[in-house]
């Protein structure tokens, strides 16, 4: 009877394709929006996650997220280095200078100042040049998107110059840094140069990044640092999540995306559910005949569930394919780089579609179960 169920389903091509594509678009919309949302939220921690050398971030106790910092004292670095279990600890500066090209085009940017001696935190994915050239004076490494923003329609080229706070800086490398939350150029330079490019303040130490000594976990190290120095210490992962949570709690982003996702789910459920229910109603006489012939309610329930799940599975597969194609296309565009279809979003969407299918089939099953087979005898 599975064969009969599937033939009944595909017999009405208009409804069948309508059902499949309703679920496919619902799938696409859910996966698309949840993935974009998650990826955008992840961008709030891009510059943290790009620092692969360190595993611990030390900051002012009231610093909540990457973009807004309260500078530490230079002596704090010594204090952190004195905590047992610290393998190494170095300075990291973050500023937002305005960079200007010789043609006058300018953009506010993220400028990250790396420890002069070690260059810990340098971008490891380079498209052109080398981060080691940062040892040269007045040098910066800029991300590709920032380069394109400042030098639109020009090929990637090194040794071009920018002006920052009356300082002429030379581009010695172009990196594939992760996209920041705000679409600003991301530049790396040495700490000593960065504080000049931005402009001197009394204290300028944004973060201390550190790595634990062998035998000490990052988690243990953060606890020790907090206890000994009263500074805030977070692992890379914790600090990244702090940023995400800050934006979730303090911006309208989750509401906007939440509304879109909820509407997509409701519309998908309603359209799919209604179409499937109508499909069942249109076939009620046939179901009645099957009941009269001697097909049990259990078997009919199985048939309807098979119909619902097969159309759900096909729609989900097509929708996921559409989603994958979408992200594959836009993955290679600068503005949407690194925005990928997340497997977690696919899983969540799958669960939602499963829910939609269950609801749609339950309504139909109920209709068939309460059907009196004798009704098929009514002309």
């Amino acid at each position, binding site marked *: *009877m599975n*064969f*009969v169920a599937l*033939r*009944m*389903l*595909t*017999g*009405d091509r208009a409804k069948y394709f309508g059902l499949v594509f309703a679920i496919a678009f619902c799938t696409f919309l859910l996966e698309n929006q949840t993935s974009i949302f998650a990826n955008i939220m992840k961008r709030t921690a891009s510059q943290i996650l790009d620092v692969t050398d360190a595993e611990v971030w030390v900051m002012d106790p009231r610093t909540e997220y990457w973009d807004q910092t309260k500078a530490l004292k230079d002596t704090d670095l010594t204090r952190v280095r004195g905590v047992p279990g610290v393998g190494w600890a170095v300075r990291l500066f973050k500023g937002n200078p305005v960079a200007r090209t010789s043609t006058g085009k300018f953009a506010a940017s993220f400028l990250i100042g790396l420890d002069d001696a070690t260059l810990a935190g340098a971008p490891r994915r380079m498209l052109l040049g080398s981060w080691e050239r940062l040892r040269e004076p007045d040098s910066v490494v800029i991300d590709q998107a920032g380069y394109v923003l400042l030098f639109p329609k020009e090929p990637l080229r090194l040794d071009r110059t920018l002006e920052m706070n009356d300082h002429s800086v030379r581009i010695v490398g172009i990196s594939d840094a992760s996209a920041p939350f705000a679409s600003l150029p991301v530049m790396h330079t040495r700490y000593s140069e960065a504080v000049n490019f931005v402009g001197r303040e009394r204290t300028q130490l944004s973060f201390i990044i550190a790595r634990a000594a062998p035998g000490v976990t990052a988690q243990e190290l953060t606890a020790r640092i907090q206890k000994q120095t009263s500074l805030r210490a977070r692992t890379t992962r914790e600090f990244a999540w702090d940023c995400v949570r800050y934006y979730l709690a303090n911006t309208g982003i989750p509401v906007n995306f939440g509304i879109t996702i909820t509407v997509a789910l409701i519309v998908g459920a309603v359209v799919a559910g209604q179409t499937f229910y109508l499909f069942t109603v249109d076939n009620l*006489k*046939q179901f*009645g*005949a*099957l009941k*009269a*012939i*001697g*097909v*049990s*309610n259990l*078997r009919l329930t199985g048939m309807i569930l098979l119909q619902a799940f097969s159309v759900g599975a096909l729609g989900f597969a097509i929708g996921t394919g559409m989603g994958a194609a979408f992200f594959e296309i836009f993955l290679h565009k600068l503005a949407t780089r690194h925005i990928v279809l997340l497997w977690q979003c696919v899983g969540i969407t799958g669960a939602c579609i499963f829910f939609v299918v269950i609801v749609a089939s339950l309504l139909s099953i109920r209709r068939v179960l309460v059907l*009196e*087979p*004798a009704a*098929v*005898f*009514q*002309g």
Partner: protein
Amino acid sequence: MRIDALRGVDFEARFGELSFLVGPSGCGKTTLLCVIAGLLDRNGGDLNVLGQKPDDLSAADRVVFRRRNLGFVFQQYNLLPALTAAENVAVPLLAAEVPRREALDRSKALLSRLGLEKRSDALPSKLSGGQQQRVALARALVHEPRIVVCDEPTAALDHATGESVMDLLASSAVKPDRAVVVVTHDARVFHHAQSIAQMDDGRIVKVSRNSSLKEAAL
């Protein structure tokens, strides 16, 4: 509001006979048919179908009993539009878990006997009314039921087609170990019956057998 659809029915369908239930619209013919087929419950009287009292069976067992022992021919055919003629005929076998290949082979063989060999792969929408009713008849017979119930099998057909369907019913459905019950108000086909039970207002008012049929029906 209580409506007594059947209020005095004493009906017997015998093996090897084509038994008609006749009467005006609303007299309870189809209701009686549904009661016999186990599709409607009754709240009085005795019912014995093939030596089995349906009251003694659970709901699930009644479904199985119906699947094994009854075949149905509906007035509106009620073929599944998405299935071919052979696939429609195979439905009772598929419901009985017969493997699909075997079910289709048996269906095609039966359709061939009923003169529809070349139409076995056609969808119902491509068949004439008479052909659809023959497919419906094949569906009712494919699983070798002991009872075949037909509800107004010629109502949707012209006279000539109706006659051919009834001829087929009489020749293919009626067997020594099978009873065929036909509900109809089409007097033109009465001559096919071995017995006619006349119903009126929920009662069987007259039963006629064999030679006196046509006069009794009129």
